[in-house]
């Protein structure tokens, strides 16, 4: 494969690290490591952007009253926070990990479609600019500001909103195209580029996680693209998909959105379900427990995720039959998820454990995501759900589901493979400090949100009754601690990348298993010129 590609290139790119210097290297690159790195850096910049926005929100919510901003601006912040974290941070971070690690893990020279890979990444920065430009223009006094409908963009509010919404629609289109391209590449690579002898059921779980994710993305992103296009038509071309006066139905939007939005949750989760077993197994020095069960579990989650969407809509009004169906099907997801949890814990059980930074993050993910999953059970109850829905309980629930996965899980992966990427071990003391700051900050942010939600505080309000003050104050303190933890992460990674730590060996962790640990650290620019054979 690598040799075939070399014919098309103007220089002999197959063996040595030949690339133009400076900026052009990054614009032209078709190398999976370069592109993976760019994805990860882009995702982290987005994490900081979305994080800074929500810190603005938490600062405003520190006490009742409007202190720092007006509601119009507040609504932009919460909306951009959601869209940026889901589409700008979590998905690109996963694609970045896939890009960097899949060829190393599968024993392939590169991703299957390198040029498409380049294109897939370079759509992202313009999309991010498209999404946020109205926000910055708004700050400078130009235009109505960014999209302000909440990331769910419920019609007809999104039909009524200013032109920031149009920018968001096109940004969603571009982000969708990017993730579809990335997904095609992941699927083609996994199905065609595995080392000889690596059957699908010998393939590491990492690849299974990304395969399910990629298939889900190709299923759902076109649906969202269609949906936002319908909003665009309603806004400008007098169609009435979502207005009752013209024969449409606002709730149709919710069906379209959540048909994308619910599998999206698993799109964010499943890559991490692929990453975490590698880490747990490495630091337990014990093979992965229930490999096949985990594979089937992931496919089960993927399949179920596309048939449960309307549990996000119990308060929208639904027939009894509809409520029962979506309630019981949602409960069924607990089964494959429990399989994964069982296997993760059984992987650790009776191992020879040590708690280096990646392990701490992986274990932290298992514990916190466990609580996120459990709270989902009561939200599935269609009759009890209205009391939690769109209150802060829901906000806390999905942050317990999403932060430990997309951020802590991804960081477990980054810390785990960092020696392979940089050739240096990370500073364990800093890594551990980072972990504990995350644990304290995260729980202090979101435990109060569960409780203030039970007390009756709705989400997405810029100001609140005085009885919610105490919990909100705590939550804001927690949020700033959590926000600060990410600076520790940057410092630690930069220090490691600049060669701050001990030189890493090819097999950087004692218990690490897999093809990626058979090549030197840092891994060569082109990893496997000759594919290894798996027995």
């Amino acid at each position, binding site marked *: 494969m690598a040799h075939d590609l070399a014919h098309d290139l103007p220089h002999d790119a197959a063996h040595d690290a030949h690339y133009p210097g400076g900026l052009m290297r990054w614009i032209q690159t078709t190398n999976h490591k370069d592109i993976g790195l760019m994805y990860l850096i882009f995702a982290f910049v987005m994490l900081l952007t979305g994080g800074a926005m929500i810190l603005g929100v938490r600062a405003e919510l520190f006490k009742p009253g409007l202190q720092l901003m007006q509601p119009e601006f507040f609504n932009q912040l919460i909306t951009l926070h959601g869209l940026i974290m889901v589409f700008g941070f979590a998905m690109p971070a996963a694609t970045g990990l896939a890009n960097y690690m899949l060829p190393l893990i599968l024993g392939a020279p590169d991703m299957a479609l390198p040029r498409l890979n380049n294109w897939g990444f370079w759509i992202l920065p313009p999309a991010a600019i498209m999404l946020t430009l109205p926000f910055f223009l708004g700050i400078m006094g130009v235009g109505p500001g960014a999209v302000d409908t909440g990331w769910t963009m419920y019609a007809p509010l999104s039909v009524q909103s200013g032109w920031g919404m149009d920018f968001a629609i096109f940004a969603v289109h571009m982000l969708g195209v990017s993730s579809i391209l990335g997904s095609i590449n992941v699927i083609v690579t996994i199905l065609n580029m595995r080392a000889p002898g690596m059957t699908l059921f010998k393939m590491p779980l990492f690849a299974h996680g990304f395969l399910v994710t990629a298939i889900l993305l190709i299923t759902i992103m076109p649906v969202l693209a269609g949906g936002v296009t319908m909003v665009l038509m309603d806004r400008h071309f007098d169609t009435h998909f979502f207005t009752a006066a013209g024969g449409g139905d606002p709730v149709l939007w919710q069906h379209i959105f959540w048909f994308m939005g619910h599998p999206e949750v698993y799109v964010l989760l499943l890559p991490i379900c692929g990453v975490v077993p590698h880490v747990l197994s490495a630091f337990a020095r014990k093979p992965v427990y229930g490999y096949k069960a985990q594979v089937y579990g992931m496919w089960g989650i993927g399949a179920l995720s596309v048939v449960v969407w309307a549990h996000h809509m119990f308060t929208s009004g639904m027939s009894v039959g509809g409520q029962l169906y979506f309630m019981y099907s949602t409960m069924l997801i607990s089964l494959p998820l429990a399989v994964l949890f069982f296997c993760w814990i059984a992987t650790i059980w009776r191992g020879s454990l040590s708690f280096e930074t990646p392990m701490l993050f992986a274990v932290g993910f298992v514990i916190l995501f466990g609580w996120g999953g459990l709270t989902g*059970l009561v939200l599935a109850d269609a009759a009890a759900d209205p009391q939690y829905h769109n209150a802060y309980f829901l906000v806390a629930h999905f942050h317990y589901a999403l932060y430990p996965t997309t951020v802590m899980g991804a960081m477990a992966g980054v810390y785990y493979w960092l020696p392979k990427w940089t050739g240096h071990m990370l500073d364990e003391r800093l890594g551990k400090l980072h972990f504990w700051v995350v644990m304290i900050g995260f729980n202090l942010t979101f435990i109060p949100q569960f409780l203030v939600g039970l007390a009756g505080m709705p989400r997405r309000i810029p100001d609140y009754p005085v009885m919610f003050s105490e919990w909100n104050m705590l939550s804001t303190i927690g949020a700033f601690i959590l926000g600060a933890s990410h600076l520790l992460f940057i410092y630690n990674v930069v220090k490691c990348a600049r060669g701050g730590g001990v030189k890493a060996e090819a097999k950087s962790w004692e218990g690490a298993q897999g093809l990626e640990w058979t090549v030197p650290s840092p891994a060569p620019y082109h990893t496997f010129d000759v594919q290894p054979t798996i027995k």
Partner: protein
Amino acid sequence: MQGLKNLVLGVIAALGTSATWAGYSWSFPQPVTPIAHETLHVHNLFMVIALTLFFGVLALMLYSFYTHRKSRGAMAADFTGPKSRKQWLWVLSPFAFLLILDYGVFGIPAFHAVKMYEDTKNDAELVVKVTGSQWLWQYEFPSEGVRFSSRLTTPREQIENLAPKGENYLLEVDNPLVLPVGKKIRFITTSNDVIHSWWVPAFGVKRDAVPGFLREFWAKVDTVGTYRGQCSELCGKEHGFMPVVVNVVSEAEFKTWLDSKKAGVVAVAAKTSP
């Protein structure tokens, strides 16, 4: 685990800085309708089960973290799945338990609760139409020909921190909805513009107001009192400023109030006893 200890310490330290615990609430407000009672019951049951499961599994993990530590000389086992029949039974039992929990412990009461929640028409004694509007609520008693709107009265100075905040800051309106105690009321929701959501936590009911469509729910409030809630579907810039206030009064007081409304008297008579 150290993590949990640190966590608890962190939370306690942060709590220590606040002057009092009085402001902290830990559960739903006192329920006053059959649905709210049912929801609180489910919630309590859930919290007991979920917290037990969570801390049970956590304890198991902590035990493993401590005992199976390399630094304590633990040697790694190499099992990757159940082998004997006994092991299979052990492995499958948590999932059997989970299924019973999902479809038995929660699933069966949930089935009846959903039926109850949606039983809006049987024995309903009064119909109230609730119309969401940017950014106020309109209430209508169609059979009585009474119709009025209800909007926030909290002064702008309080919101902008120019005046001290009142007790019912953001939860006070000019014309509250008045309802008779102990009567099943059928609510019909709709909207004039975007989607709103009508919620009173003490009633345990929340239903979206969808423009162009009718949605319904019911409530039968068993205690006289004033109940407050807020719009809970993002509906634009004043979303945080369209509260719901319901005065639940005796049958007689309700009649008086209704008559005064019919007579076109705008002032609220709900709180004045006959």
